[in-house]
């Protein structure tokens, strides 16, 4: 069973397609990193899943049920664009309203639980408008966690957070998937952070899903490369281009892609009077993979 299964989903605004024939599959229990540039259709897709927008065509299924099913929707938690809290009410009151909305029986207990998860138990009485950005994001997560969510949809939850805030958010997300079994759909521009937690990725461009892959797939597909510096960079670059199919000059280094035999390369360069100053094996990360994929698509 998939937590989210989208087929042929389209949504247009004044004739322009924000989501265009999109297909998406999010397995149960996954942390699905939803990646794309600004305006690529990430938030629109998330709003469509949550029923905030009406699709032009296509189908959305959540846990094998139509997304309009009341039983499944009551178990969806979302943080899209902003927290959706009343600024003049306290953190506690905002959570209480959502607890009542969800019809929870032990409301106070539930609020305490989610506040502990997001490490906000000492700030429950604070007015929402007095909270920092990081606190607001965490309150948003707490709202989404109330009740018994099977699916969390989080739109850019780590944007604007400092390094410590990002680390905390990362720990919270890993915690809730491991301890509570939630499936998480998370969109973010901060790919380095996403890479640390995501188990699956979906890459969207101009409203179309251009690739879906698991973290394992990415690991397999991610190119290895050797980067090096020599005394004669120009000469060595020309020489290596004759020997290997994919050699690039990037970031002050010569990079030889799909080759990780550093000893062989050092030997070859030494034999041809290109003494090596520095050499290291590398593997491209999500960010480089994404940039490369995008540039291929643009080409």
């Amino acid at each position, binding site marked *: 069973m998939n937590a989210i299964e989208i087929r042929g989903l389209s949504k247009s605004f004044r004739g322009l397609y924000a989501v265009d024939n999109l297909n998406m599959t999010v397995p149960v229990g996954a942390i699905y990193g939803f990646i794309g540039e600004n305006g690529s259709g990430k938030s629109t897709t998330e709003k469509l899943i949550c*029923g905030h927008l009406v699709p032009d065509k296509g189908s959305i299924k959540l*846990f094998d049920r139509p997304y309009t099913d009341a039983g499944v929707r009551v178990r969806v938690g979302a943080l899209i664009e902003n927290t959706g809290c009343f600024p003049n009410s306290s953190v506690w009151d905002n959570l209480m309203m959502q607890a009542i909305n969800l019809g929870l029986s032990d409301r106070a207990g539930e609020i305490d639980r989610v506040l502990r998860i997001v490490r906000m138990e000492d700030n429950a009485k604070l007015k929402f408008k007095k909270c920092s950005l990081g606190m607001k994001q965490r309150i948003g997560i707490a709202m989404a966690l109330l009740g018994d969510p099977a699916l969390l949809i989080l739109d850019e939850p780590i944007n604007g957070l400092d390094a410590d805030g990002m680390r905390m958010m990362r720990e919270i997300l890993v915690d809730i998937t491991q301890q509570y079994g939630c499936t998480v759909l998370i969109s973010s521009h901060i790919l380095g952070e996403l890479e640390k937690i995501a188990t699956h990725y979906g890459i969207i461009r101009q409203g179309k899903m251009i690739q879906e892959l698991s973290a394992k797939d990415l690991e397999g597909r991610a190119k290895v490369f050797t980067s090096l510096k020599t005394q004669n960079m120009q000469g060595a670059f020309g020489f290596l281009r004759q020997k290997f199919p994919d050699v690039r000059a990037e970031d002050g280094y010569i990079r030889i892609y799909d080759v990780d035999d550093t000893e062989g390369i050092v030997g070859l360069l030494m034999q041809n009077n290109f003494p090596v100053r520095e050499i290291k094996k590398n593997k491209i990360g999500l960010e480089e993979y994404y940039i490369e994929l995008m540039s291929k698509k643009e080409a």
Partner: protein
Amino acid sequence: MAQTHELKFENPSFAKRIKGMLGVDFYRLFHTPMYYIFLAIAAIIPAMIVSMTGADGGQTMYTNVWNIVAADSPRYIVHNIGEYANMNMVFIFGGIMVSIFIGHDYRSGYVKQLFTTHAKKRDYMISKSLVSAFSMACMCVTYLIGGVVGGMISGLSFEVNISSLLIAILGKVVMSLGWASLYTFLNVIFRRYFGISVAASFFIGTGIPIIGAAAIIGNNSLLNVFLYGSSVYACLSSNIVTMLVCAVVSVAWTVIYNLLGSLVLSRCDVY
């Protein structure tokens, strides 16, 4: 208390869904100062009007204190402010309050939480209509108290046919439901434009369209099919038929506006 491992999805009953949404709306209503401010406004305005009437040496707006609740007979065409200024003003205050209340849902973004967890859009319409009707009914009560206190201060006559008075008050309370549904519908239509929704609610609440129609077609009882018409019909010469008319008109418009609002929300983007 880990509990989310189970993947069972039980459809919540209508009663459970509406209980949750009504609960949150009432919680919000009782925790917002705006509600109490409007209750106070609904009490102060009639008290002031009646008191000023007593102080007015030349013109007398009311001879009887209960005219602050309703006119002696259903008059759709307004000749003076005294015929207009009665408990129907609660529906103007109510319109503004409902617009602010619902507008806050959208402006804060809380509506996203509601629509994420409530797949059925009619829950929203029903809940907002009921909570708004309740708040307007409460305003009717504070209005009555304010009017009576003002009447006592100004020394106006309290003579009245008590059953007609009770029917008139109850009729207007019953009409609150229809008005609340209308305002909820207007706010759903203008959900992206807070100012327009407040202005539209105020304009419709004043009854100007019906007063305008009455100026053309005269004091015609056909106007009772509209909310303002029935609200005027609930007057100091009311009888049981008046009560029935108010109930039927109010419920009919409630159903119509709720259906239309639900249709708009399910066919259009919710924000």
